[in-house]
């Protein structure tokens, strides 16, 4: 077969030739590390409750601590090394969100605080915010319409 006859043939040939990401291995590691991060969150939550805090402020403390740790590790150039192994495991929890804001802030500091840090800080997280907030608004409207509490 001549794989270069048509773009379609070439594309099929390239797909066969290019190795796929090790999906099962990646999923397993993401599950374990994602679970570990969530467990750390649970430990912080339980500790807050143990110290006599209410449930809602305890939730806030969990988010603040995990965001703080992720931002700090991003600054130390460690989070990207964790992310390379963990993939969605460190990306999906709030740690990934913190990383996606801090990493462009560091990268674009060379373009100044206004247009660099300020302007580029949400280049990665922006879509998550736009579609995350939009989805929550839609869900909210559905809730109101169907009168669910």
């Amino acid at each position, binding site marked *: 077969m*001549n*794989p*270069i006859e048509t*773009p*379609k043939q*070439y*594309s099929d*040939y*390239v797909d066969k*030739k*290019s*190795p*796929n*990401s090790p999906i099962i291995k*990646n999923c397993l590691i993401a599950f374990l590390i994602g679970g570990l991060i969530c467990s750390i969150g649970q430990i912080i939550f339980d500790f807050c409750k143990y110290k006599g805090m209410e449930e809602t402020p305890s939730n806030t403390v969990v988010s603040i601590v995990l965001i703080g740790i992720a931002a700090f590790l*991003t*600054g130390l*150039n460690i*989070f*990207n*090394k*964790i*992310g*390379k192994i*963990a*993939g969605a495991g*460190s*990306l999906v929890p709030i740690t*990934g969100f913190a*990383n*996606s804001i*801090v*990493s*462009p802030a*560091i*990268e*674009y500091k*060379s373009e100044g605080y206004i247009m660099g840090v300020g302007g580029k800080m949400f280049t*990665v997280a922006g879509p998550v915010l736009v579609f995350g907030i939009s989805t929550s608004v839609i869900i909210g409207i559905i809730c109101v319409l169907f009168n669910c509490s």
Partner: protein
Amino acid sequence: MHKLGKQTLHFDNPPTIIETASIVGPKESEGPMAGYFDQCLDDEFWGEKTWEKAESKIIKETVNMAIAKSSISSADIDFCFAGDLLNQCISSSFGLREINIPFFGVFGACSTFVESMCLGSVFLESGAAKNVICATSSHFCSAEKQFRFPLELGNQRPPSAQWTVTGSGAAILSSNGNGPFITHITPGKIIDMGIKNANNMGAAMAPAAFDTLITHFEDTGRKPSYYDVIVTGDLGHIGKEIMQDLCKTKGYNINSNYDDCGVLIFDKSEQDTHSGGSGCACIGSVFSGYFFKQLRDKKINKILLIATGALMNSTSSQQGESIPGIAHAIAIENERI
């Protein structure tokens, strides 16, 4: 100078490559080619405040090093041909703004080094210049920032992704000299086979390299065995295999004397570089550091150098455009033809 076949130029008074220089970054300094480069940096910033400034410094110092190593003073160099990957080629123009040599900015993506040498050779052959310098650079960090994501972002790279080489290569070409001679150039056509995956550049560029190689053979009447080495720029591991497969379909077996700079520069298993190296400096530094010295020491005598480029930017990728590839070839030989 006369044209052979469809797109090859043969030089009657072939220009000589009289000197080269190469500087590479820390990761390249840990790779299998480390011993051949003129200077290995242990800091990606090289004392500068930004990646872009660091890249400019790398190309500037590489050009200065090539001039210092040669017997030619910078005043005797008539023209400079240089380019890189950053928007509007700022690494080259900022890095070389003080060299005081008439400057042509060249953009051919990762094919820039050979494109510059093609243009420089024609200038020499036509009598427009006696000496020219050709240079290029790339930097992993500045390229990632421009084309992909911030470095600190914790994402995963697919197995087909390539690693942009940090470094620079420069070559001084002269109309007077005893070789190695640039005997032929085969500038390539833009070839787009519809690949859209910016994480599989080797597959996007391989058809262009294949087209240029086959055209070179048809134009010159040469066969793969004529050359001691046929080397492509940055097809990487996947692109190299595709290139070998494509050549087989036309009845050319290049397996014994073909290699790729993107495969040579990193140790895939040790350095986690996935499909290999890429970037302008990939072929720039490997040719300047390794192959030129092999030619000068007569360990190899005939080499076909094919630099490959992906002519896209981040906007075209986001708009879903496919990636046009290009490949320029030069034949470098120790004897005049």
